[in-house]
């Protein structure tokens, strides 16, 4: 799909771009319908507090989804993000409980660094070890989780051991926007911009569309793949800091099973698992949609147990929609060729 954006004439690009836009429009529409329906049933769903809660709950998932989207666009996958979140959260929480006076920027940087190192390990194994990403990150998912467990054992860091400012960070706002939401917006926005407008981003799409072609076209595949994994790791590391700040109680099981939520958000957001298409902000919207669904169920007084089943159906629907778009594009491209 995106190979055409690299070398094809302009009309092609706007045509494909238009179809991809409808894809994200679908998520926006689904969100709007859901919010409208829920708000009619209970107007308090649109109150400031409720919107705030939804955004706060989305933030951590959206940060991880932004990193994951980049990896998936390159036709890889990162299943280790939940475990990386745990390592980062536990490192930062331990550090903060020992040094109460550190300014907030220190844990954020440390968390990102811890995550980036984990991502680097994944990237090097995938690229230079020639081990498939699914195998590497499934392996490091276990390894990182095991490391946290052998470090933490049964211990946990409680909220009362953490400095006040660190815990307040999750709830404080700037200009009425909570820090957490601001960070998520910056991450999703920044990575979207990188993927859309910068050379490295376009190269990521090229790699995902056809790894061989990208290599033959002179793209530095090795560097780009490692950047993708480092980004995903760093995002998971940052998410660990936000997690620690928001929940205050951190043990070795933090973020268990998050990897599948993150992949779900990315897939619902329209990023194809075979790489080369989708957008980072679409993945962010996917994270928002998944979060809003679970809070809407609570508001609508629908049994909470339905939530997971609905998420599952949504994922399947999203892939079906992608398939439909792909078939339509293929058909219209064939028609175009026939006219030439």
């Amino acid at each position, binding site marked *: 799909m995106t190979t055409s954006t690299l070398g094809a004439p302009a009309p092609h690009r706007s045509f494909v771009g238009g179809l991809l836009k409808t894809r994200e429009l679908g998520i926006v529409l689904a969100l709007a319908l859901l919010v409208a329906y829920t708000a009619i049933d209970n107007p308090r769903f649109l109150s400031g507090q409720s919107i705030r809660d939804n955004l706060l709950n989305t933030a951590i998932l959206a940060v991880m989804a932004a990193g994951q989207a980049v990896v998936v666009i390159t036709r890889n996958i990162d299943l280790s993000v939940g475990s990386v979140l745990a390592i980062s959260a536990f490192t930062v929480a331990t550090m903060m409980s020992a040094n109460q006076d550190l300014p907030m920027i220190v844990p954020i940087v440390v968390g990102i660094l811890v995550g980036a190192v984990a991502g680097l390990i994944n990237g090097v194994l995938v690229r230079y070890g020639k081990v498939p990403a699914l195998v590497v990150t499934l392996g490091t998912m276990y390894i990182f989780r095991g490391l946290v467990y052998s470090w933490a054992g049964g211990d946990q860091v409680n909220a009362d051991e953490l400095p006040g400012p660190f815990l307040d960070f999750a709830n404080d706002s700037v200009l009425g926007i909570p820090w957490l939401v601001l960070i998520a917006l910056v991450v999703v926005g920044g990575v979207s911009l990188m993927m859309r407008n910068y050379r490295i981003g376009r190269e990521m799409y090229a790699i995902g569309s056809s790894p061989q072609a990208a290599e033959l076209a002179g793209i530095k595949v090795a560097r780009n793949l490692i950047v993708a994994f480092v980004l995903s790791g760093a995002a998971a590391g940052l998410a660990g800091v936000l997690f620690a700040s928001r929940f205050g109680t951190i043990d070795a099981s933090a973020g268990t099973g998050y990897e599948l939520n993150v992949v*779900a958000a990315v897939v619902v957001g329209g990023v194809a698992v075979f790489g080369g298409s989708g957008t980072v902000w679409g993945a962010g919207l996917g994270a928002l949609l998944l979060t809003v669904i679970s809070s809407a169920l609570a508001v609508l007084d629908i049994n909470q147990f339905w939530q997971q089943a609905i998420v599952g159906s949504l994922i399947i629907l999203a892939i079906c929609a992608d398939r439909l778009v792909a078939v339509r594009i293929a058909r219209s491209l064939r028609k175009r060729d026939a006219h030439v």
Partner: protein
Amino acid sequence: MSDSSSKLHRFSAAGGLSKRLTSWDSIIIVLTVIVLIIASAAVDNFGTSRNFTFMVLDLLPIILIALPMTMIIVTGEIDLSVASVLGFTSALMGWFWNNGLSIETIIPLCIVIGAVCGVLNGFLITVLGLPSLAVTIGTLALFRGLAFVVLGDGAVADFPFSYTEWVTGTIGSSPVPNVLILIAVLALIFGIVQHATPVGRALYAIGANDKAAHFSGIRVARTKFWLYVVSGAVAGLVGVLWTLRYSSARADNGSGLELAVVAAVLLGGVSIFGGKGSLPGVLAGVVLLAALQNALRLEDVSGQALNIVTGALLVLSVLLPNIATAVRGNWHRRRLRQAAASAR
């Protein structure tokens, strides 16, 4: 040229992987035997008959689900929904039991429902042509969700003693658990189908190149469809066994088991790209993981720290053969250069 082709190696479907993987399943079998011998000698109580019984019961769910999973991964696909099917059938079992169905009706019913779950996966993957990784992540959430819808967070525990006793019991006074017969029979059937029938050969052909397989007359879509149905049925059966073993039907039974099964299958030498791997290797992989876990637990090492061993083995199972191939290649090139130099 050789350099660029080696760079592309990772992306090619199965090119040149045969050498390293055929050797890996023999390595894993030897490794498993060594671990079993060392553990019996060095770890107190490891070799006892009681411990043997427990170990078999512990590896029961993973080994059964790994049988169809091996076939699915050999065709180049994956099924991540198995543990959720297990949870769903376990929840249904509790619900049916509460609604007064007899256990003789419930057990076949649960297996059939598991197969129906597989039909849904198979339909989405082979008829609509959707990617199996994404589809089964979706149905992973869907089936687990349905399990919670059926049973909530409650548990049903009062299953008839004769059935729960059969699952945890042993044959007569021997240490051989009853379920080992089940494992042996199913492993034999799957092993014969995979390694001694045209269907089995077709699986490898599909995994190596599904277009070529299609043009050589293999019904690719239909074969894959039935694999998912079988996988669902086996997961349904394991849901029943799990429920009876712990005498507890819960919606969250078996959570996260899908990744453990995939890890065991890959550790056994099956290539995630399809086309390569053998059932004996996978069986050894499952036994190796179970034996390590069991031995470390007897040594009071935390079960969670064992995650490190599982993960490292998984990565090494692919990394080491790759390094070996690279070294062999270098050595071969150097010999060619030397030969060329001496000829001059």
